[in-house]
C-alpha cells in the first residue's frame, strides 16, 4: 500500500510541478529518440526491457515454435517404432493421409476419412451451437435480473471443471440403462429416442457435441455479455420506442453489433474443437471408432499407441495448419486494428 502511495505522490508531484508542454515534449523525446536500426529500436530501453521478456520468449520459442518445426521435420521422415530414423525425407505421410481421406465414400472408407470429416463436423456444429446457447444465456442475463451473479456463476461453472471430470459425469448421464437422459425420455414416453448415446456409432459425435456445448456455452455467455454491455443503452430504448418486438429488436439491432464478440468467441471455440482430446479420450479411449474419431485423438493413437511417429506428426501438422487457417486471419485483423 505504501509503495502505491509513494508512486501516487510522485505522479502528483510531476503532474502539478511541471507544465504540461514540458512533460509531453520530454515524453515524445523518450518515444521517438534512440537509434533506429531496421525494424527494431535498439535504444537503451530495448536493452533494459530484454531481461523482462526474453526468458519467457525463449521458453515459448523453444517449446512452441521449435517444437512445431521439429514436428514438421519428423513428419517428413518414415519414423515408426522405437528407434528414431530421420531418412528419407519426403511428403509421403501427407500423401498417404489425404489419399485415404479421398478414398472415403458415403459409406465406410478408411478411418482417416472419418476423422477428418468428424473434425470438420465437430468444429462447425459445436461452434455454432455454443455461440447460439451462449448468446441466449447472455441475453437472458442482460435483462436487469435479480441474482445476476448467481445465475452467471452457475452457467460458467462447467468451464472450471476438467474434461476428465465432465466426461465421467456425462458417461453416467448417457448410460443407456440407468442414465438420467434415457430415464427421462422413457418417463415422457419418448422411448424411441432412448438410444445408446455413446455406444452407437451414429450418435457418438452428437453426444460429444451436446456435452461440450454444455461445458463451453458459459464462455460464449461471458463474451457476449461483455459485448451487450458495451452497446449504449439508448439503442435498446430507441429500438423499443420504434415498436420493434423484443425478438425482432435483438435480431435487427443488437445481434449485428455483436460481430466482434462473435468473431473472437468463434475463433477460440473452433481452435478448441480442433484440439478437443481429453473428453473423447476418457469416454472412448484412444479408439472412438468411425463415429466419433477426430484428428486430435487419431494423432495421439497413431503416435503413442502404435508408435507411428512420422505419421502422427503429419496428422499433427495438418491440425496445426487447420488452426492456423482459423487464427491467422483473426490475428491479422486484430493487428490491423491495433487491438493486440
Amino acid at each position, binding site marked *: 500500500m505504501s509503495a502505491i502511495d509513494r508512486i501516487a505522490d510522485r505522479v502528483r508531484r510531476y503532474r502539478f510541478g511541471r507544465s504540461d508542454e514540458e512533460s509531453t515534449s520530454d515524453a515524445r523525446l523518450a518515444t521517438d529518440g*534512440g537509434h533506429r536500426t531496421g525494424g527494431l529500436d535498439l535504444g537503451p530501453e530495448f536493452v533494459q526491457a530484454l531481461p523482462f521478456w526474453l526468458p519467457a520468449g525463449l521458453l515459448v520459442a523453444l517449446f512452441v515454435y521449435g517444437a512445431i518445426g521439429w514436428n514438421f521435420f519428423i513428419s517428413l521422415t518414415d519414423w515408426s517404432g522405437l528407434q528414431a530414423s530421420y531418412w528419407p525425407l519426403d511428403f509421403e505421410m501427407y500423401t498417404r493421409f489425404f489419399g485415404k481421406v479421398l478414398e472415403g465414400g458415403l459409406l465406410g472408407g478408411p478411418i482417416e476419412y472419418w476423422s477428418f470429416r468428424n473434425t470438420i463436423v465437430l468444429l462447425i456444429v459445436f461452434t455454432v451451437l455454443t455461440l447460439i446457447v451462449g448468446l441466449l444465456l447472455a441475453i437472458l442475463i442482460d435483462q436487469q435480473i435479480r441474482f445476476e451473479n448467481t445465475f452467471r456463476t452457475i452457467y460458467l461453472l462447467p468451464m472450471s471443471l476438467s474434461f476428465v471430470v465432465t466426461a465421467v459425469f456425462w458417461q453416467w448421464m448417457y448410460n443407456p440403462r440407468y442414465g438420467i437422459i434415457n430415464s427421462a425420455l422413457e418417463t415422457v414416453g419418448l422411448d424411441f429416442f432412448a438410444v445408446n448415446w455413446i455406444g452407437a456409432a451414429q450418435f457418438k459425435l452428437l453426444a460429444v457435441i451436446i456435452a461440450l456445448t454444455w461445458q463451453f456455452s458459459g464462455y460464449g455467455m461471458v463474451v457476449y455479455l461483455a459485448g451487450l454491455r458495451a452497446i449504449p443503452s439508448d439503442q435498446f430504448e430507441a429500438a423499443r420506442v420504434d415498436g420493434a418486438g423484443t425478438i425482432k429488436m435483438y435480431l435487427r439491432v443488437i445481434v449485428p453489433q455483436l460481430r466482434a464478440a462473435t468473431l473472437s468467441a468463434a475463433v477460440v471455440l473452433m481452435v478448441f474443437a480442433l484440439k478437443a482430446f481429453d473428453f473423447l479420450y476418457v469416454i472412448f479411449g484412444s479408439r472412438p471408432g468411425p463415429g466419433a474419431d477426430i484428428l486430435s485423438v487419431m494423432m495421439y493413437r497413431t503416435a503413442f499407441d502404435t508408435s507411428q511417429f512420422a505419421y502422427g506428426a503429419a496428422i499433427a501438422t495438418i491440425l496445426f495448419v487447420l488452426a492456423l487457417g482459423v487464427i491467422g486471419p483473426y490475428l491479422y485483423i486484430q493487428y490491423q486494428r491495433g487491438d493486440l
Partner: protein
Amino acid sequence: MSTSNDSIVERATTVPRKRIGLYAALLAMVVLYLLPLETGLFTAFKTQSAFQTTIPVLPPIGNQITADPWFQAFDRLWPALGYSVAFVVPATALSALFGSLAAYGLTITKWRGQILIMLIFVAGIFIPYQAVLVPLTRFWTSIVNIRGLLGPEGSLVALSITHIAYGIPICTLLFRGHFKGLDQSMFEAARLDGATIRTIYRRIAFPLAIPMFAVTLIYQFTNIWNDLLFALVLVRGEYEVVTMALQSFTGSMVGQYNLLMAGAFITALPTIAVYVLFGKQFAEGVSGGGA
C-alpha cells in the same frame, strides 16, 4: 409478442408476465447446467444396488445412503492429488510471473518491434498441443533426460516446466491487457524521474498488477490442474497426476458409477473451491484470454 400499438394498460399487464417467463427460462437453464453435477452428487452417496434401481436425480434415502464410495475413491486418488498439487502450484506461479514480466517488457517499455514479438507470443495461445507432442516427448527423454537426471520425480518437473512454457502466451496476453488499461502518465512520470525500467516494474507496475495476478493465478491453476494430455505423454506410472488417476479409475471401475462420481468430485474439488471463492477472477480470465 407485443406490437407497436400496445396500449399502456396492455403493456402494464404483459410486463410482469414477461418477467415470470424470463425467470422461468433462467431457472430451466440452471436445471440443465446443474443436472450432471446434481445426479453425480446423489449417485456418489448411493449404494451399488441403489443407484441401479433409483432414478439418478432423486436423492438417496434410508439404507440407500452410504459414504463408502467417497472413502474408496479417495483411497485410490489421494497420492495423485498430492502429485497434482506438487506440479500445479509452481507451474501456476511461474507462468504468471513470466507472463507479467514479458507483458511489461512488451507493453510499458518503449522500443519498436514490440507488436511483432507480442504477435508471436499471442499466436502461441492457439496452438493445438498435438502439434508439439512428439517433439515434446523426445525433448524430455533424448535431449534432457529428466528422469535420468532427477529420478522418476523428474516427470513431474518436466510436466511443470512444459505447462509454464505453454502458459506464458495466455498469461502475457492477460497482463498486457491490464497494463494497456493503466494510466500511462504514471509510467511517464516515473521515467522522467529517472527511474530505471526495473524500478518502474518493482515499484509501480508490479503493485498495480496485483489484481491481474489474482486473475491469472486462478485461471492458470484451473487450466493446469484440469489438463490430461500433457500428463499422458510425459508422466509414467508411479507419479500419475489426478486427472490421469481418475481416467484410469474409470477404466478399472467400469459400471461402478457411485465410485466414479465420488472420484470425479474429489478430482474437481480444488477447482470447484477456487471457482466458488474467486468466480469473478475466473470469469475475467476466461473472457480475457479465451478458453
